[in-house]
């Protein structure tokens, strides 16, 4: 099979396209070439930690300047690197064209001065990023704390261009030396952003502290050489259970894992949704967006939807009616948000069809053409295959009481979209005990803020090395050698 495209190695400003070897991608069977990383792995890490100096001395204003210029250059209509990445993703990614294009069109505003400053200040603190922050402790010593960049390896998820962009944005803000292992289902976006960076800031320290390349996840010839404390200090791993789990074998003193691990999201809809048809329609529209965005490929998408309709005949009828409305809204979403999936899961639909035949327990709305479906449980439990829900297939579960909605939340739960606001406030101190990490207004599940913690951790603060400088005046802070001496 001929390779459809090449994934070059972006090596600190230099573009390497030699020594190509082929790699397979599942979807569509396209193949791509990338430099044989076993030949380059020795050149990926910084030769010495001293080489961080230039990055460390960079003024924040200059960071803002470079990122703004980068953002301006990430204009999909003019940027050939992005267009190339889009063409490659079309072959490698399950998302349809309109949606992928949209994921590139939202990149530019990410890098605006206002946005970068807000993220930097709220997620780390500008004072800590740009200087030593003084503090007097109660024992009298003076403390000064600064957030330093670290040498970080990133394994981003491949659903859309956003994750690669966020990775680069966070890395530049925190003055990290960055190596990105490109995902096989979006192999070119990170490289495209890196190449654009090299265009707008050639030879700049920011450009020289960025490496992007592809090797097959689990390739020990590369990973055993690179994933060592003498080369990198932290690994940021997104994604599935296997990919996060296999990285853990390299974790040791001096090499830390920041895991943005597998997540699912859920939805809770209160009784008020059934007050009148208009409210119900609005709730259905919001829920449909939470299900449908980017065809439910993401971790923030709604999958199981608990509704406080009750489970008596009227309650079930209401749940069914809401299911019909959600299905209508879901299939009516514009193509840049949601479409029938290109690669619906056969295994999932085998279960959906079995549920359709089991009409004592489930009512299946739509799905006959694998365009997406809503399965309404006719009792208070989710379908047993809830972990498979994807390609805009959601499960509505009617429940009688607020106690039962905690079923929606497990240790793998990320976002909970909730309607109405009063229910969210009633649940916000309880749901996190079970694992929820982000509670948001129904309809905003997939509109994820960057100036906020993620997955119940603060990845940017964790990417930094928090260095302490202390000054102790022996007349103020009693030194150890004077302990036990008689007081003067």
């Amino acid at each position, binding site marked *: 099979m001929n390779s459809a495209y090449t994934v070059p190695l972006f090596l600190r400003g230099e573009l390497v396209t030699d020594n190509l070897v082929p790699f397979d991608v599942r979807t569509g069977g396209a193949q791509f070439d990338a430099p044989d990383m076993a030949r380059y792995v020795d050149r990926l890490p910084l030769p010495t930690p001293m080489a961080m100096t230039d990055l460390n001395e960079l003024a924040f204003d200059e960071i803002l300047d470079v990122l703004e210029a980068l953002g301006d250059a990430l204009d999909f209509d003019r940027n050939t690197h992005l267009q190339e990445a889009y063409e490659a993703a079309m072959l490698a990614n399950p998302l349809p064209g309109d949606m992928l294009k949209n994921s590139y069109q939202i990149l530019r505003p990410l890098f605006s001065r206002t946005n970068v400053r807000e993220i930097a200040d709220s997620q780390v603190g500008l004072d800590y990023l740009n200087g030593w922050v003084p503090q007097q402790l109660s024992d009298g010593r003076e403390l000064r704390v600064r957030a330093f960049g670290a040498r970080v390896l990133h394994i981003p998820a*491949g659903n859309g261009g956003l994750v690669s962009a966020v990775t680069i944005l966070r890395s530049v803000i925190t003055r990290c030396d960055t190596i990105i292992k490109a995902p*096989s289902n979006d192999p070119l976006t990170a490289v495209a952003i890196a190449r654009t960076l090299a265009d707008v800031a050639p030879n700049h320290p920011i450009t020289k502290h960025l490496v992007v390349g592809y090797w097959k996840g689990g390739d020990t010839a590369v990973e055993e050489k690179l994933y060592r404390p003498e080369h990198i200090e932290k690994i940021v791993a997104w994604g*599935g*259970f296997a990919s996060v789990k296999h990285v853990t074998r390299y974790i040791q003193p001096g090499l830390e894992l920041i895991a943005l691990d*597998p997540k699912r999201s859920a939805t809770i809809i209160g009784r008020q949704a059934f007050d009148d048809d208009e409210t119900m329609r609005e709730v259905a529209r919001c829920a449909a967006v939470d299900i449908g965005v980017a065809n439910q490929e993401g971790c923030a998408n709604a999958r199981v939807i608990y509704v406080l309709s009750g489970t008596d005949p009227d309650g079930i009828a209401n749940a069914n009616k809401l299911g019909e409305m959600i299905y209508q809204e879901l299939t009516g979403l514009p193509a840049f948000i949601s479409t029938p999936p290109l690669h619906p899961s056969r295994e999932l639909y085998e279960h959906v*069809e*079995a549920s359709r035949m089991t*009409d004592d327990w489930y009512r299946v709305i739509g799905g006959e053409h694998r365009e997406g479906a809503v399965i309404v449980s006719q009792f208070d439990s989710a379908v047993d295959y809830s972990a498979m829900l994807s390609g805009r297939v959601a499960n509505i579960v009617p429940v009688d009481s607020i106690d039962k909605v905690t079923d929606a939340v497990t240790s793998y739960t990320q976002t909970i979209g909730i309607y109405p606001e009063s229910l969210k406030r009633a649940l916000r101190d309880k749901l996190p005990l079970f694992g929820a990490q982000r509670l948001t207004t129904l309809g905003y599940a997939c509109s994820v803020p960057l100036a906020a913690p993620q997955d119940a951790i603060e990845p940017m603060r964790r990417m930094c090395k928090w260095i302490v400088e202390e000054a102790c005046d022996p007349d103020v802070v009693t030194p150890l050698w004077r302990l036990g001496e008689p007081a003067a």
Partner: protein
Amino acid sequence: MTTQQSTTRVEQFMDDPIAFFGESLTQMHSIPRDELEELQRQAMAIRFDQHRQSIEMVRKLADRLRISELNDFNDVVPLLFSHTAFKSYPAVLIDNKRFDLMTAWLDKLTSHDLSAVDTDGCDGIDEWIDRLDAQTPLEVITSSGTTGTLSIIPKDKHGSREGMVLWKICLFQTFGKEPTDDELNPAVDVIWPNYASGKLGHLRIANMIKRGFTGGDERKFHALYPDAIDTDLMFLASKMRAAASRGELDRLVIDPALAARKDEFIAMQARQPEDLDRFFTTITDNLRGKRVFMIGAYNIMYDVASAGLQRGVKNVFAKDSAILTGGGLKGVALPDDYMDVIHEFLGVDRIQEGYGFSEQSAFHWGCSEGRYHVQPWVIPFVLDPETSEPLARSGRQTGRAAVYDVLLKAHWGGVISGDEVTVDWDLQCPCGQTSVAFERDIIRYSEKQGVEDDRITCAATHEVHNEAVNFMKAFES
């Protein structure tokens, strides 16, 4: 036009193929293709009519698809069930011990009437299956699933008796020779390299084999482990794995009745090395040189053979013993010479291989050319692996295996498998059998897709599900 005489002939073909083919393997696989296909077409139409009346799920599906009669083979394709049909009940019914509702669910999948089954006080899956055994014609079999549920296939006692006779015909007869009395009524020692009994999956056939092959002398049945495997425990294991994959392990509640038996299960596990020793002692002391019937999946056969060879036990059984293996390699890596190891241990002339899945009435036996010849009462299909549209019934086709088994009476006989197969429709197999055959290389689609892929998304993936399947298979196969 169907004459009275030919109706009778079709009815005998579909209801009693053993008599129809004179108990002869040779006759089963010598019937001219055209003649067989005409019989199959008529039988399919009749069986569909019957099942549309007697099986609610078939009726509902047919009504929804507006299918009221079947004429051509491909007419049945939209009505084929996926494996999910036999596990579409909510698993919470078992947790809550609502075996009345489980019975109501199963009633819609079988032609037998289950409305009078008494499940009052029923405390677990095994007990429920015992009640069904006692009160109905059913003899259900179960198998593990990937979503924390078990498949429950409503087989019946008639089918299991018939199945054992068919096994005997295929195991002891040789194609091209009419059967002898000895081949028709063999009484042999049975080697069962597994748990002695259980309701889970293939363990269920232990009792069928015990009845069918030993001539009634149960002392001739030799199991590797003397214990029964508890289905409720397996259901828990299945749920555990599914819960782990969903991050819900902290929610898993173990049924107190089962938890109380924890020590029993641990003791059973601790006894296994002892059991293994006793098993080989029995083989060397009592069964050396005897004609036996032994059945097990490749990996089990290999494990037993290696353990035997390590103990210096080899060439143990009579050369004319009947040995049956198959079941795919189930994701376990065996060395290239695994069949040599099995041969060396057993010391028999031939090891037969079969291909099939639990929804069917019988295996399809491997021939001298290495092809699996489809039993005459089974209509095979090769489907597009994604869309399930039937591929042409001519030339060489590779795709997803599906079958419509006209012999099945207790449940619907149309199923789609998870296996990739190849059929050369125009081939006249050099082995001499006239029947259609699956080519030797069969692979599960799930295994095929599992390799060469490091696709990452931030939503949870199914690696853990696969782990669960392997975990379960280690027990049941």
